[in-house]
């Protein structure tokens, strides 16, 4: 009897112990809301960019304690497609990463990027209309129209000007409504370019070999599409046909006219930073230092001035118009999911957060990108940021409504190649270094570029 009773008690104790252990193990999981799992994220950029990525991911993990994220600076994978290829071939590619706006079409063409449209369709709380249409256009594959990323933020080219230099030359500032022309810029640039004897570029005594202040700087000197495309667009041309970006458009008379305008600024007027001066010190840093009056650039300049030359007296205006109207280019930074990721649902959860709720806050203001989601750009994270110049909204947001605003025309699946010796790289080099006129350099170039596109 005693034995039987003792056995029964033992069984109950054992059962109770098992239940207690099971509760201890499973209770926290059952009580935890939200996603669980592990992800890897690749990032690239300078130390401030890395800091902001780390802050954003830390915030996401605070809000989603069941998700563990490894953030890796993976030798530039994203900025460099070659670096991503080695990661993919080695089986170490991240779940989420940041493709460059210059190479995402190549990645999309190779099937590296997950199509996000089904995820968006299945998400009743996410409306792509909450992003500006131009930013969604810029994350859409040219090949098949699939959505290959969500915008992290974007930048846009505006005219940055040194108010003291304009005052000293007795010139009115570029108007904040964009009601001025590239011919105005050319005339101003000549009056604002000064040699070491104080002669301006429109003076007979001007010495182009001894310039101490340049009237204008543009990224076209690299040569970079963010610099030359707004001019070509405003003149009615482009490097590649729009919107498909599938064929060369450099032999179009308006494209040639645009490039001749650029060459004349450099070599006829001597009013803009030429390649050799740019090689000495990058042109936009010359503007930050106070050596250049007008600069065609993005909002990164505001942060640079804030860090390096806070006393600079400057403002910004939208880019001017040409025969075809006002034009500028945007560059969208995006989050994408690797198509081979085994954690796509979780990756989507992270990516969606980063592009929406997480798009401002810790990193929206530091990255100096314009938040692309809803009206976030109008608030403290951009327009009202402490170092934002007076006409930030007019120069950086209003141009989004221009018909000619888009992303650079040479950003397609063969950007690397068409910018090199096989494409139009050498022809542009001849123009920029004054070896040939724009017409001489560009005549016949399209057969070469189109052959690359078709190969």
């Amino acid at each position: 009897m005693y034995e039987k009773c003792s056995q029964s008690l033992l069984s109950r104790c054992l059962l109770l112990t098992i239940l207690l252990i099971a509760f201890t193990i499973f209770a926290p999981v059952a009580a935890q809301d939200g996603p669980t799992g592990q992800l890897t994220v690749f990032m690239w950029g300078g130390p401030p960019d890395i800091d902001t990525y780390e802050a954003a991911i830390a915030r996401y993990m605070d809000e989603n304690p069941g998700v563990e994220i490894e953030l890796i600076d993976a030798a530039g994978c994203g900025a460099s497609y070659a670096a991503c290829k080695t990661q993919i071939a080695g089986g170490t590619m991240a779940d989420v990463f940041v493709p460059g706006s210059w190479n995402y079409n190549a990645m999309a063409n190779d099937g590296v990027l997950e199509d996000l449209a089904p995820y968006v369709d299945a998400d009743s709380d996410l409306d792509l209309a909450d992003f500006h249409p131009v930013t969604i256009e810029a994350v859409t594959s040219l090949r098949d129209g699939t959505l290959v990323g969500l915008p992290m933020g974007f930048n846009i080219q505006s005219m940055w000007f040194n108010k003291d230099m304009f005052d000293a030359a007795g010139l009115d500032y570029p108007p904040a409504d964009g009601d001025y022309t590239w011919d105005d810029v050319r005339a101003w640039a000549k009056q604002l370019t000064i040699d070491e004897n104080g002669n301006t570029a429109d003076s007979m005594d001007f010495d182009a070999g001894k310039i101490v202040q340049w009237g204008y700087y543009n990224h076209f000197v690299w040569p970079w599409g963010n610099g030359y495309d707004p001019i070509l667009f405003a003149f009615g041309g482009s490097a590649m046909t729009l919107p498909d970006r599938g064929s060369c458009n450099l032999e179009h008379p308006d494209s040639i006219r645009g490039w001749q305008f650029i060459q004349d600024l450099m070599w006829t007027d001597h009013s803009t930073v030429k390649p050799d001066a740019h090689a000495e010190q990058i042109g936009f840093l010359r503007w930050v230092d106070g050596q250049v009056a007008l600069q065609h650039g993005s909002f990164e300049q505001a942060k640079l001035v804030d860090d390096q030359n806070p006393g600079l007296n400057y403002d910004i205006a939208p880019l001017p118009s040409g025969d075809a109207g006002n034009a500028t280019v945007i560059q969208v930074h995006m989050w994408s999911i690797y198509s081979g990721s085994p954690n796509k649902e979780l990756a989507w959860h992270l990516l969606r957060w980063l592009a929406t709720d997480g798009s401002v806050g810790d990193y929206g203001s530091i990255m100096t990108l314009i938040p692309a989601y809803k009206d976030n750009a109008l608030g403290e994270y951009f327009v009202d940021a402490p170092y934002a110049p007076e006409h930030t909204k007019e120069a950086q947001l209003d141009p989004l409504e221009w018909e000619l605003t888009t992303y650079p025309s040479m950003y397609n699946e063969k950007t690397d190649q068409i910018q090199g010796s096989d494409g139009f790289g050498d022809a542009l080099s001849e123009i920029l270094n004054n070896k040939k006129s724009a017409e001489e350099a560009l005549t016949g170039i399209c057969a070469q570029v189109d052959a690359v596109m078709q190969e």
Partner: protein
Amino acid sequence: MRLRSPSGLGLNLWRDASPRARRQWLTAYAFMSLQLIGLFVFILGPLLVSLYYTFTKWDLIAPAPKWTGLRNWLHFFGDARIGQVLGNTLWFILWATSSFLLLSLALAVLLHQRRRGTTLFRALFFIPYITSQVAVGLVWSWMFNTRSGPIPNFFRLFGIEIPNLLLDESYAMIAVALVATWQALGYGITIYLAGLQGIPGELYDASSVDGASGWQRFRFVTLPLLSPTVLFLTVTSFIAAFQLFDLVIILTGGATGVAPGGPGGSTRTIVLYLYEQTFLFSERISGLGYGATIGWMLAVLIFIVTMAQFRFARSTVFFLEDSD
């Protein structure tokens, strides 16, 4: 240990060997095993795998390479750009190796003399060799700068305006060769100095007694006895020159309005083209397979050139025989 075998086959060697000799063999191979494993895993294995890739198409994205047979090899011989990039590479080799071999020899002969300061100069010449190519490229791209670069400003002293050599199709590769030579001089000088120190002094004494002039001593004593060193430097500098890549990227891909390999494709070398086809381009043929094919053809070319150099060396290189 002396081993004998009637047939010369390893099996017979092993069978005929004494137990002690066998133990010694096993011990020797045990010591060598790590090296042999490394050789197979890290050198022969990848070599064979890369040879396999030459018969495939792989963009590094697909899960596995796709067999394409001889397509990469046939494309190589029909690729119009190969002629240009090989021509550019040979043009570089001509300038870089000749200037390297001659200048480093001349400087080594000068620095071989026992005078004050030679040790300092040897160290100074060696510094560029241990400097990163990126740093060298950045410094030299400024040296050629027509606004503030020392080279154009030197010519300006004499009223001569020279273009930025890196922006001129005719001179860009020569400028790259000049930079490569400047960087490698210290290495060449060091090797030549080692060779010069190995020449017995009594030969110079004997030639002086015979009335030889300084030039005759150099021509008939130094140069012949230095010929093995010249051969070594010739072979290694040719191999290195065939692989030119970093300097071109830095010198021509900077902020000078020129695409890497420019201007006009004049500095596009075969290794730069290999990189472009492997990682950057998306032509039908592009990918690791075609890149490996270019790499193998380059290796074959280097092998042929090296063999030709050794063949030429048979009649021109003199080895000092050991009197023992």
